[in-house]
């Protein structure tokens, strides 16, 4: 086959080019995303129950839905949260589950119990959930006039439709501003004067606002539709609605109420750079392309702006794809630098342009060709696939280098390039296949990992497999062919003529010579070490073992977390005010923070979203100028923010860096279980105190919030009977008077607006005001407080549940150290707390993912070792000496990995663990090269020790060159913006450096012992 490729040059070029061309064409079809597309098997159910407190939401809605859903198979966990007026259920299924099928099953279960749920709930919303998804863009619309009702109207009715038409957009959420609504504000004093209660007003409006189709009148061949059209056609008509009091008096609605074409009570506020705006969050569909959507939005922004009404302005406030683009660019730049460094290394080692070109051409051909199977597999260009390519650069070239080096040896003997290319390639066929095979068997387990991490890593593992396969293909086809076509035995250098150019050339030519000299010097030094090793073989092994154990002991000084966060030019400030605060109070707090943000020189813009998750809560997204243009890091800015916010009364806040996922959990998240909520609150506070005192957390937040005060009317049954009333009618009057009743609709120009009837705010402020609410009884109009006792007490707090048990979540946001280290520390300190029986805690959030990842990666690591061992046994037909000696480098590489992380100040995380698995396949290559040559020499009749020296000596240069090629390929990752890439780079570099050292020191001695053992005890 190799002969065929060497002799059919055009065929070979075309063979390689086919994949390159396919790769080029595939590139345009590949989506650019932040993370790989994953169908998370998570379904959420959101239910709005207006006016209900958390306990009512929990018992009447959430529990019932949880019970119904729990019958579905393959459930991993059920979590829920019950707030004021709102319940949220989160169902996570096993990864084997089909999320589409499960979503339908959840829908069916919820629909089946709809009749058991309160009538007042709004239709439950059932959605698939992707924790990695976040709005592609946040657009903001503002107006010079400051009329936020007009702005909201345009955003909701016009822009939303326009944005939704862009391909890939799933939904557009409008927030902030003032939503148009017809408000009927009843005056209780005037109502008393007219002897009417709110129930009659609502009923009269409902009865008046009707269109009724009356059927068709048919005459001959014609039919005439008949309709009763009684719907309101203007706001004035609503105000003029005739009301009849129970004593027969007639009057108009406007006589007892102010009827206004106004807006809904504000519950969300959006502010951009300190100005009130209406925000539009553009969310992509699961198969949508964020970069495409952003590109389209930007392209059409001018068109959208042109069609805006006079005085309105549309801007892009946040764009998550900017980070994706920067990240992609950063990785591409790193790939490019890696390639350049590798080529420079080749030039230094080989000293010839032609040889460097032959080896280096493998990199672009393999990478471009890889794009084709990536597209076929449905992958995208994302941080995982790019990381895969960045990591594998050096590996791609190593096969070609080994072949090239051997061809050069043959070329110096035969002086016939074609024969040298064929023989040189054939000779190293086994080590090349073995080293590629070890790479592949390692990446296959990564690609087949289970759990969430498995889904993330699939594209990583397979991309490496594709690239490695293409490099192998090119190494056996293109490399020998190019060697035959381009390489000539080195001729004697022409004498230099004096001149500047010649001086420069001579200087450049001196570099490879110096590298040669350095290699020879190192080899000479190694010769001494080699002799020393075999003079004291046991001591050598003991020394290596000590070094390995020592390295492992350093592991406790390496930080350990799931996913390190980096400076992504974005800081998110989440703040909560006490329960019961109004949206105005929250907005005041936000304005105060905004004033501080204006003083931050690194600020680019900021977007405040108030009330999106309850009126007491707000989120301020601070965009910073790029980190390269800043003097301060995002963490230093966060420090300043903490100092400032800590001086604001009643503001509980936490500031976080933008991360990969939009998960709102803390770096350390703990679920506290129990039965009695009071005991749980006490325990949670003790735990929070310990966490705060540990000094590791910037902020610690409890899911339990001190509940707001509530006023309740405890009905007196006798009174109710006396007045001929029941709890339902009294409750309804109270609810309509305070919360409002908005089921009536007013239509205008094809749009529908709610008509909300409630008591005037002036009479709905204080404790006394409830006495102004009247209800019509059989004894006439009576104040509602006569029907029972008015009490003030504390409302029910927000209720969180997990797997149908109540929990309190404690979220800790770290300022230093890392999740695993801090969790271990906390565990020791939590022992001081006396947890009553039935009360305990469990780490959740990232910790759970970490646990799952450890199991999956551990399994992949074990499988990788077993497969590599089996492959080595199979290739060399040896069971002990060769494979075991080679495998010692794996152990050494793990020690190197720890040292890499330790010295380069990187953490052990999901990426570094993955790097560890990858190293298994890479580090064995050096030992394979060394021992392969040793075996050749042994077959020639040399003694083991001599053969080992000959093998090490012959492959010294190749091992150094290929290892450094791989190291230089991943070296740029150390300077990457992303901590994840940095830690992977540290693992790879540490592991590979250790593998070089231990390949030359440990492997020969171990092989020597094992070979003698094998010869003595085992007869093949």
């Amino acid at each position, binding site marked *: 086959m190799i002969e065929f490729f060497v002799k059919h040059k055009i065929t070979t070029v075309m063979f390689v080019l086919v994949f390159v061309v396919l790769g080029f064409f595939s590139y345009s079809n590949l989506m650019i995303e932040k993370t790989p597309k994953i169908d998370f098997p998570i379904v959420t159910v959101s239910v709005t129950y207006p006016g209900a407190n958390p306990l009512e939401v929990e018992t009447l809605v959430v529990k019932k839905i949880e019970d119904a859903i729990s019958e579905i198979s393959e459930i991993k966990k059920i979590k829920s949260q019950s707030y004021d007026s709102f319940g949220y259920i989160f169902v996570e299924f096993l990864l084997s589950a089909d999320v589409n099928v499960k979503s339908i099953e959840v829908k069916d279960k919820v629909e089946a119990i709809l009749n058991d749920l309160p009538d007042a709930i709004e239709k439950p919303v059932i959605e698939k959930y992707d924790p990695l998804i976040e709005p592609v863009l946040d657009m903001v619309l503002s107006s010079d006039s400051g009329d936020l009702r007009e702005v909201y109207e345009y955003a909701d009715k016009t822009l939303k439709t326009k944005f939704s038409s862009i391909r890939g957009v799933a939904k557009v959420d409008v927030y902030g501003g003032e939503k148009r609504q017809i408000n009927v504000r009843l*005056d209780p*004093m*005037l109502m*008393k*004067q007219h*002897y009417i209660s709110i129930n009659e007003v609502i009923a009269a409006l409902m009865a008046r606002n009707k269109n009724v189709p009356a059927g068709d009148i048919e005459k001959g061949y014609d039919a005439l539709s008949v309709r009763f059209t009684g719907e309101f056609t203007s706001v004035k008509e609503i105000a003029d609605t005739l009301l009849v009091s129970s004593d027969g*008096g007639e009057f108009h609605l*406007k006589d007892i109420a*102010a009827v206004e074409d106004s807006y809904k009570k504000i519950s969300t506020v959006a502010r951009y750079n300190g100005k009130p705006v209406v925000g539009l969050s553009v969310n992509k569909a699961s198969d949508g392309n964020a970069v495409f959507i952003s590109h389209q939005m930007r392209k059409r922004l001018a068109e959208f702006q042109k069609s805006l009404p006079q005085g309105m302005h549309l801007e892009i406030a946040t764009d998550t794809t900017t980070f994706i683009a920067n990240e992609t660019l950063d990785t591409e730049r790193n790939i490019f630098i890696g390639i350049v460094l590798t080529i420079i290394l080749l030039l230094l080692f080989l000293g010839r342009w032609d040889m460097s070109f032959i080896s280096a051409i493998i990199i672009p051909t393999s990478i471009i060709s890889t794009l084709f199977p990536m597209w076929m597999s449905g992958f995208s260009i994302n941080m995982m696939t790019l990381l895969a390519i960045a990591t594998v650069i050096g590996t791609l070239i190593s096969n070609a280098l080994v072949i090239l080096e051997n061809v050069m040896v043959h070329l110096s003997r035969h002086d016939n390039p074609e024969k040298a290319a064929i023989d040189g390639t054939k000779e190293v066929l086994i080590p090349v296949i073995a080293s590629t095979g070890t790479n592949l068997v390692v990446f296959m387990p990564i690609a087949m990992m289970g759990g969430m991490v498995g889904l993330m890593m699939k594209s990583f593992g397979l991309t490496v497999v594709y690239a490695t396969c293409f490099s192998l293909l090119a190494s056996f086809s293109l490399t020998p062919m190019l060697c035959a076509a381009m390489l000539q035995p080195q001729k004697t250098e022409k004498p230099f003529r004096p001149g500047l150019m010649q001086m420069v050339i001579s200087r450049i030519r001196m570099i490879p010579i110096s590298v040669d000299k350095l290699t020879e010097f190192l080899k000479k*030094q190694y010769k*001494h070490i080699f002799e020393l090793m075999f003079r004291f073989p046991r001591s050598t092994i003991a020394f290596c073992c000590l070094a390995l154990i*020592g390295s492992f002991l*350093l592991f406790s*000084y390496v930080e350990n977390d799931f996913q390190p966060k980096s400076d992504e030019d974005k800081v998110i400030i989440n703040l909560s*005010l*006490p329960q019961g605060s109004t949206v105005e109070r929250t907005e005041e707090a936000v304005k105060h923070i905004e004033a501080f943000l204006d003083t931050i020189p690194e600020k680019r813009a900021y977007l405040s979203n108030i009330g999106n998750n309850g009126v007491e809560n707000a989120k301020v997204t601070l965009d910073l100028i790029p980190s390269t243009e800043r003097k301060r890091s995002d963490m230093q800015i*966060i*420090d300043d923010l*903490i*100092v400032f*916010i*800590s*001086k*604001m*009364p*009643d503001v*509980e*806040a936490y500031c976080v860096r933008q991360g990969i996922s939009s998960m709102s959990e803390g770096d350390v998240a703990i679920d506290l279980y129990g039965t009695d909520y009071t005991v749980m609150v006490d325990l949670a506070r003790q735990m929070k105190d310990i966490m*705060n*005192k540990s*000094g*590791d*957390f*910037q*902020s*610690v937040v409890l899911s339990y919030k*001190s509940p707001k*005060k509530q006023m309740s009317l405890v009905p007196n049954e006798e009174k109710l009977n006396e007045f001929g009333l029941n709890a339902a009618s009294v409750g309804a009057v109270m609810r309509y008077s305070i919360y409002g009743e908005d089921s009536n609709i007013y239509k205008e120009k094809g749009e529908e607006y709610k008509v909300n009837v409630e008591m*005037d705010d*002036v*009479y709905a*402020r*204080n*404790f*006394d*005001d409830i006495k102004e609410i009247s209800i019509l009884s059989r004894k006439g*109009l009576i104040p509602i407080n006569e029907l029972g006792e008015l009490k*003030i*007490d*504390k409302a029910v707090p927000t209720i969180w549940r997990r797997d149908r048990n109540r929990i309190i979540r404690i979220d800790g946001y770290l*300022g*230093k*150290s890392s999740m695993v*280290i801090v969790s271990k520390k906390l565990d020791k300190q939590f022992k001081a707390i006396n947890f009553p029986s039935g009360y305990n805690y469990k780490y959740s959030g990232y910790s759970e993912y970490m646990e799952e990842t450890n199991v999956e990666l551990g399994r992949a690591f074990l499988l990788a070792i077993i497969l590599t061992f089996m492959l080595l046994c199979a290739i060399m037909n040896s069971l002990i000496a060769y494979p075991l000696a080679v495998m010692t480098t794996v152990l050494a590489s793990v020690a190197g990995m720890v040292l890499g992380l*330790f*010295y380069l*100040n990187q953490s052990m995380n999901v990426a570094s663990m993955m790097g560890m698995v990858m190293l298994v396949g890479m580090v064995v290559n050096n030992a394979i090269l060394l021992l392969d040559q040793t075996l050749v020499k042994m077959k020639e009749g040399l003694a083991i020790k001599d053969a080992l020296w000959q093998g090490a000596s012959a492959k010294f240069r190749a091992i150094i060159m290929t290892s450094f090629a791989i190291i230089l390929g991943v070296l740029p990752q150390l300077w990457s913006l992303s901590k994840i890439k940095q830690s992977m780079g540290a693992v790879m570099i540490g592991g590979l450096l250790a593998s070089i050292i231990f390949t030359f020191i440990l492997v020969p001695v171990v092989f020597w012992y094992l070979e003698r053992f094998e010869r003595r005890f085992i007869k093949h």
Partner: protein
Amino acid sequence: MKNFKRKTIYLIIIILSLASVPLRIHAVKAARGKTIVSFYGEWKKAGKPVEVRVIKAGDVPVYAQFTVRIVDGRVARGFVTGEVKNALQEGQEIYDPEDRFVVSARLKSIGAELDMDAGMFPVEVEFDKSRDPSVAFVVCAHTSTLHNVLAVPNEVLDIAGDEYFIWKDENGLAKKRKVVIRLRNGYGAIISEGLQSGDKVIFSGQSMLEDNDRLLVVDAGETDKKEQIQ
């Protein structure tokens, strides 16, 4: 000699490698032990932020609210309950409920007879300028005064079961004190026990407090009429 030199270099390399380990361990320990900026740390250092008001015994005006409708130019008519009617006087100042320091009208007349349709007593107010006859206006009038009382806004009261508490600033430390409420309605709470004139009461920031927390007073002052009773 050459061998000695080589061994020395090897030794130096080994020593340097070994020496770097404790150095790095020291750096890791220093990083783990460093003091970070945290909310807890800031509160420990400077105290928890609160707004404090000195409560002084004083007279507290009580107002009644009612709705009127323009019947003739500046004159508007409305109805009040018998209890309110008895507390009103002709010619007294009528205020806007949004701002009780602005006199917007005067009480023109108080009907002595109960209006049978409304079940209340008619009152007439005269605004200082003519108003839109199609709109109803909510106004308020001073009905009584609570003399020499200690009053706090309802918002500063903490409830636990049937007991009421307020947070006080005592020598820079937060103290949760039980109080007894003599009178409480929509416009405030009159404290009969647990509060002395001159006590510093925490008006905001109490949601984050625990007993004996150090306080950082970000806003201090005395209560004025507006804050005492709304």
